[in-house]
């Protein structure tokens, strides 16, 4: 028996892209920084230190809430979650258990399904431990980074669906501008709860795979867990409720902590931070300021761009944003998807895209057949060349000598030149004898004579006319 239905709920930690930490005034962006160089007495829990609340983090949480189509709670509070570990200097994490800032919402996925959000709360990140033989080192740069933890309902039912949900969350959070979205540096981390049951039966016992930091590992971990749990159930054994870790190298999950060993977090209301009171006006204001989200772009480009092209581009917010500023979205989206993203340095290029005018001009020239599609690609790539990037499409085309000759008079002269060439006599004879095929050869000869500048579409009728 193998027909189990898989049920998945995901908790996602999103690091907010604030300038300073949640409760102190030191730099929140610790990437490329010396360990323990972004740490204040609040972060390392000097006695007598009290948390201050970063308003920017609250603002971003509200924006994130809107992006999740969620209810924003006008009253929310912080709580303390206690456990002992060297990455947690105070011995407790300031989180929100009882009254989180973000209530129920949902995420719409590209396939049209929706995953409901149970709630999302604010909390502070912990530090990072590095383990060596016989000792461990603590880096508190990340301690106190503002997070929101987004808790989904168990609405996900396949590994691919889980991956798509995580990816969509990543897109939404980066589009909303609340997260840098650098997964390699842990900007977003996923805890995935997985259980199996036969269809129609109550949910099975779940295992939680902690701390996944790529969409691929989410997908693989779910696939692995399906196999592991279904094997157990097939044998009539039970799935243990526990926390498991994932290894990208072995492709397996391993037990970390069972329910019996689970910590008692001794939650308590945080007495050092008064409740957060938000006004309706503030919450509405954040809605107005909301940048466009993936779903908005899907709506905008519907029917103009192939779905799969759009889904590729949606991974790069600057591209769809730029696309939205251009007129010929079909052409531009193709340049983005098949030319730009094929480039080795495409990641760099995303930060410095051509202007809408450059793209519009290029599209218009292509439309008017002043450029061949190859020529257009060449000009497009020059938009990213430090030497030429600020120049007009036409200027660049001239410089590259790829403008097509459309002028009938000029083309006729070239055609005459070709037709008078003795090397073409045989072909002309063949054509007149009824062989349409040789027309291509003759067009080629005209192109050659024009050094590639003739527009083949314009050449053909002239040739036909002259050979009548």
């Amino acid at each position: 028996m193998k027909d189990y239905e898989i049920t998945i709920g995901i908790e996602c930690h999103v690091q907010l892209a604030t300038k300073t930490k949640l409760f102190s005034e030191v730099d929140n962006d610790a990437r490329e920084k010396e360990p323990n160089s972004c740490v204040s007495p609040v972060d390392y829990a000097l006695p007598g230190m009290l948390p201050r609340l970063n308003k920017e983090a609250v603002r971003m949480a509200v924006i994130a809430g809107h992006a999740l189509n969620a209810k924003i709670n006008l009253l929310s509070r912080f709580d303390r979650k206690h456990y002992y570990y060297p990455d947690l200097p105070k011995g407790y994490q300031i989180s929100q258990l009882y009254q989180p800032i973000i209530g129920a919402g949902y995420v719409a996925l590209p396939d049209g399904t929706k995953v409901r959000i149970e709630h999302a709360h604010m909390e502070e990140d912990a530090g990072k431990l590095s383990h060596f033989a016989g000792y461990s080192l603590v880096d508190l740069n990340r301690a106190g980074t503002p997070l929101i933890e987004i808790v989904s309902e168990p609405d996900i039912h396949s590994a691919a669906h889980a991956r798509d949900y995580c990816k969509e969350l990543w897109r939404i959070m980066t589009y909303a501008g609340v997260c840098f979205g650098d997964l390699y540096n842990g900007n977003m981390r996923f805890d995935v709860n997985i259980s199996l049951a036969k269809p129609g039966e109550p949910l099975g016992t779940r295992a939680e795979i902690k701390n996944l930091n790529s969409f691929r590992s989410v997908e693989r971990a779910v696939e692995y867990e399906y196999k592991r749990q279904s094997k157990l159930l097939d044998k009539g054994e039970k799935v243990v409720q526990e926390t498991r870790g994932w290894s990208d190298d072995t492709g397996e999950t391993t037990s970390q902590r069972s329910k019996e060993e689970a910590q008692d977090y001794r939650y308590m209301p945080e007495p050092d931070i008064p409740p957060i009171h938000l006004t309706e006006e503030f919450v509405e204001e954040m809605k107005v300021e909301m940048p466009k989200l993936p779903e908005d772009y899907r709506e905008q480009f519907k029917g103009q761009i192939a779905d799969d092209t759009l889904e590729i581009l949606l991974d790069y917010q600057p591209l769809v944003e730029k696309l939205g500023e251009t007129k010929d979205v079909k052409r531009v989206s193709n340049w983005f998807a098949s030319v730009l993203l094929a480039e080795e340095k495409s990641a760099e290029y995303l930060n410095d895209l051509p202007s809408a005018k450059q793209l519009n001009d290029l599209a218009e020239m292509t439309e008017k057949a002043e450029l061949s599609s190859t020529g257009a690609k060449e000009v497009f790539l020059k938009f990213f060349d430090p030497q030429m990037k600020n120049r007009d499409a036409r200027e660049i085309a001239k410089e590259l000598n790829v403008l097509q000759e459309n002028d009938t008079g000029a083309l006729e002269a070239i055609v005459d030149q070709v037709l008078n060439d003795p090397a073409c006599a045989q072909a002309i004879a063949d054509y007149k004898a009824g062989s349409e095929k040789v027309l291509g050869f003759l067009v080629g000869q005209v192109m050659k004579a024009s050094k590639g500048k003739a527009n083949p579409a314009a050449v053909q009728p002239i040739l036909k006319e002259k050979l009548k």
Partner: protein
Amino acid sequence: MQIASKEVSATSLVKAALEKAKRCENYNIFISLNEEAALKKAQEIDEKIKKGENPGKLAGVPYALKDNFLSKDGNTTAASKILEPLKSPITATSVKKLEDEGAIMIGRVNMDAFAHGSSTENSYFGPTKNSKDEARVAGGSSGGSAVAVALDIVEFATGTDTGGSIRQPASFNGVYGFKPTYGAISRYGVVAMASSTDCVGFFAKSAEDIDLLMSIAAGQDPYDLTTLPNYYETSEVKDVKKVGIIKDFDVKGEIKEALEKEVEDLKAKGIEIVELEMPTLKYALAVYYIVVPAEISSNLSRYDGIRYGYRNKDAKSLDEVYGKSRSDGFMPENKRRIMIGNFVLSSGFYDAYYLKAQKARTLIIKEYEKAFSKCDFILSPVTPNPAFKLGEKTSDPVSMYLEDVMSVPINLAGLPSLAFPVSETKDGLSLGLQLIGPRRSDKSLLDFAERRLK
């Protein structure tokens, strides 16, 4: 209070204080003296005076700092082993405000470790002795502060009051001790005990002196989100007509006589005495010993031997670093409260203890609100008994807790309260009473004490 001037130099004031401090060594008041830095600062102030510059409202006034305040001067111990004197990179807001006005800290004074206790016997550095009888306790937890003022070593001392830790030692030593409204003075830089009841306050020799200290130290601090918007200086002084006394407290012996005498005095001054029934106050002690240990267990989690402070050198694993360092570093009373706190917060017990206690706390707050609709202030004993003997209650923590029955409800409600000396027992022990006001009535309370209780 004696402030430095052209006639009386700051240096002479500080030298005199330091000499007295040394003469009183037998009382075990100071954990560390701040001699060098104090004399240096005194010289700077004398220079200012000479040059005609403003030396500040507390110019050259020597004071004692309870050893749970962080400051760049000296090391903080909180009278514990686990802080293994802590060199602080920051100075508490309250300390900075005092120092900016020219006050000079001559030393850090003894207390119950982490302010857990009512006798200063829970200090890693041994108990401080009562100023009137060396066989008796100084009270606590701010025992060192009270005795330093009572023996006239310093003009004033800082304290913290979480459940009576200023008022009880003040009344045991015959000095004024003031616990302001919760949130009046910043807690930033003060070693936390219980965040929702901790208050910074003062010991001095008059209500007038405390008024001056409050005008300097009170005020909103961006580094403490629980501080109230500035109100102290701007609040109106009210014309007090009615003073309430609580019928529910079982007051006996010489304390009862002292209270009755004070009531007669007030009546003679035309004050109406209102008898109050406050039945929920009897739950206050139970509520306090749930809420406060819960917060203590949380606030003391940071002392883990990892980043600063004492670490057991024999520990071979992470669990041992935590277990052994905390086991060696905390006093028995600290451990007792941490264990109570962890118990009441543990899952399955939270609702029955902590949540219920918070509900009862709300009722206590309401009871005071009701009382203050009938009177301006409440007059009450601070403790059921005068200072007890050293060692008398150390083996029975609950009997020690019971001494707090009249002081803790005020902390739960966040009210201001002034302990003031009234008389002495026939054995020469100090007797004090406390005057309690509604929230933010601090200035009126001190004004009334200064003008009407003398």
